[in-house]
């Protein structure tokens, strides 16, 4: 198999990103406290979410606001499959269709969850990819609301806003770093593949690329399903580490957060997705600390709840006003490091 020049550079760039991800993971393992480990783990989960978002948004330039719903679907599907029967009898006593009478091993559960997420993403995607710009965005918003109201309504399966507990803790920081690295390779690979190139071309000029024989609708659907699968992975990783999930985290707040990450870094590149995730994850921790009203050089600061939300919104607004393509713009990491040939 011969690779094009873009694909070769893609491999180099993905390796660089992988090195950074592994580096942060190793540092965290040696130096972080238990609490910090959890924060870093959730940063990696968000990284996978943002990467999943980038696959669709970055290549097709349609805005997707339903990503947290797909993460939720993956998380719930995996959680319901993997939880031991004894625990499920307590957590979900009224579950229909014998959902509380079986349990699978983690790998099988993950596979089942991915299949479910993929099928749902495919069915929804058929509708979404036919719409244009704004219509598609609002339709994804509708999906988010539909999925959330089903989570809230079917309390016998999803427990709604209460916690679904008893999920065995399968994942550690090491596993999520490995998963994130794999996802980086997949996402970057898609961007540089023939499909990714055609899809990006169609985002730049839909009519022109269609005239060149690009099947825009089919390519968007492929990107959408791939995005759904990556988001499903993020959901599984989330459930497998925390051991308990509820419907609340898979709604608007999480959508805002991950979208801000992607926008800040730059949705057109994988590097931008990685940069944005880590910059905002760590930035927010500092702001959360300020929110609690700490004492800095003798000055007792007041408690300001909501500051992190204001900052998150400002990041989006300022990025859009000053640099709409995000910090990275169209440049991937290897283009910064290597000399331009």
């Amino acid at each position, binding site marked *: 198999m011969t690779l094009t020049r873009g694909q070769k550079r893609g491999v180099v760039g993905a390796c660089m990103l992988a090195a950074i991800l592994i580096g942060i993971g190793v540092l965290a393992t040696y130096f972080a406290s238990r609490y910090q480990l959890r924060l870093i783990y959730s940063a990696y989960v968000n990284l996978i979410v943002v990467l999943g978002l980038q696959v669709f948004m970055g290549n097709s*330039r349609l*805005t997707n606001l339903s990503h947290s719903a797909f993460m939720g679907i993956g998380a719930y599907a995996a959680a319901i499959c993997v939880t031991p029967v004894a625990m499920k009898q307590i957590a979900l006593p009224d579950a229909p269709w014998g959902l509380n009478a079986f349990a699978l091993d983690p790998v099988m559960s993950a596979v089942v969850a991915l299949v479910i997420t993929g099928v749902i993403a495919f069915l929804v995607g058929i*509708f979404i990819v*036919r*719409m*244009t*710009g*704004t*219509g598609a*965005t*609002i*339709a994804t*918003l*509708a*999906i988010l*609301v*539909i999925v959330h*109201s*089903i989570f*809230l*309504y079917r309390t016998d399966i999803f427990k709604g806003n209460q916690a679904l507990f008893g999920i065995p803790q399968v994942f550690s920081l090491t596993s999520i770093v490995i998963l994130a690295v794999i996802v980086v390779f997949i996402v970057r690979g898609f961007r540089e593949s023939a499909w990714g190139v055609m899809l990006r071309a169609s985002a730049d*000029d*839909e*009519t*022109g690329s269609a005239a060149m024989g690009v099947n825009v609708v089919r390519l968007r659907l492929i990107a959408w399903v791939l995005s759904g699968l990556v988001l499903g992975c993020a959901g599984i990783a989330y459930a497998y580490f925390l051991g308990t999930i509820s419907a609340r985290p898979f709604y608007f707040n999480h959508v*805002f957060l991950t*979208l*801000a990450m992607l*926008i800040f870094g730059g949705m057109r590149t994988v590097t931008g997705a990685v940069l944005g995730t880590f910059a905002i994850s760590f930035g927010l921790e500092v702001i959360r600390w300020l929110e609690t009203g700490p004492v800095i050089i003798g000055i007792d600061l007041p408690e*300001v*709840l*909501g*500051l*992190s*939300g*204001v900052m*998150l*919104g*400002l*990041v*989006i*607004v300022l990025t*859009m*006003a*000053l640099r*709409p393509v995000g910090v990275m713009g169209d440049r991937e990491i290897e283009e910064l490091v290597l000399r331009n040939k």
Partner: protein
Amino acid sequence: MEYAAQQIINALSFGAEYALLALGLAIVFSVMGLVNFAHGEVIAVGGYTMVAFAALVTENPWIIIFGAVAAATLTSVALERVAFRPVRYADPTTGLLTAFGVSIVLQNLFLLFISPRPIAVTSLYFLDAPVTLFGIQISSLQIFESITIFVVIIGLVLFLQRTTLGLAMRAASLDFEMVRLTGIRADRVFALAFLISGLLAGLACIFIMARRGSVDPHFGFNPVLKAFVACVVGGFGSLPGAVLGGFLLGAIEVGMLVMLPQEYGGLKDAFVFGIIALVLVWRPDGILSPATEKGDKL
């Protein structure tokens, strides 16, 4: 028979509320291609103004109503100046995400400076009195709502058809460069679009407040979510589409409430959005979407 008439009136009044909001979104979208996510926060500003007026100035409901509408209008115009001017000629996605950011900032400012909890305003309850009309029990609020949307539509049509600025606004939705070449100032057209949008948000705010009686940081979120859907169904950027979409959504929502068995009540939104999705499969760009000419892209 009476029951049916009652439900039809319910559907009309719900539809009128959505149509008001959807018109506010559509008028901005048709001029500058911006999906204004912050519309809900403009409504919330109206609600908070009511709280402030009722507590500090006067209990007179007409002054409160005037204050709320004025505040919403000013907020909308101010947002255009501060936040949306830099993205004026940017692509729709940039504008959409900016508005998204503005919405988050405002919501959290309410949270930060006012209160995360709902605050009650009771001075508008008098709008919601029961009225018997031809043997049907309805609320006066529903009549006011239907009349308001009727007046608004007539006013808008007159404005757009009869005045130079109205003509400029209609032309702006087709070709903004041409409008500027004829000597109309772009600033004025944009400001006017946001002014009308804010005015409609203020009117909607009164009805929502009269019904709910309290305001919280996420006050405008759900109504505007519905208005977005109404816009999409009707065809984004089309003013008749926004009205049609609003009424259609009202009808579907009331229909769902009437026909769904009690135990599925919690799934109402899911069903409503599901039906909307099916409409979009039939017409992906909305029912009355303006024709797009893809060939003349430069």
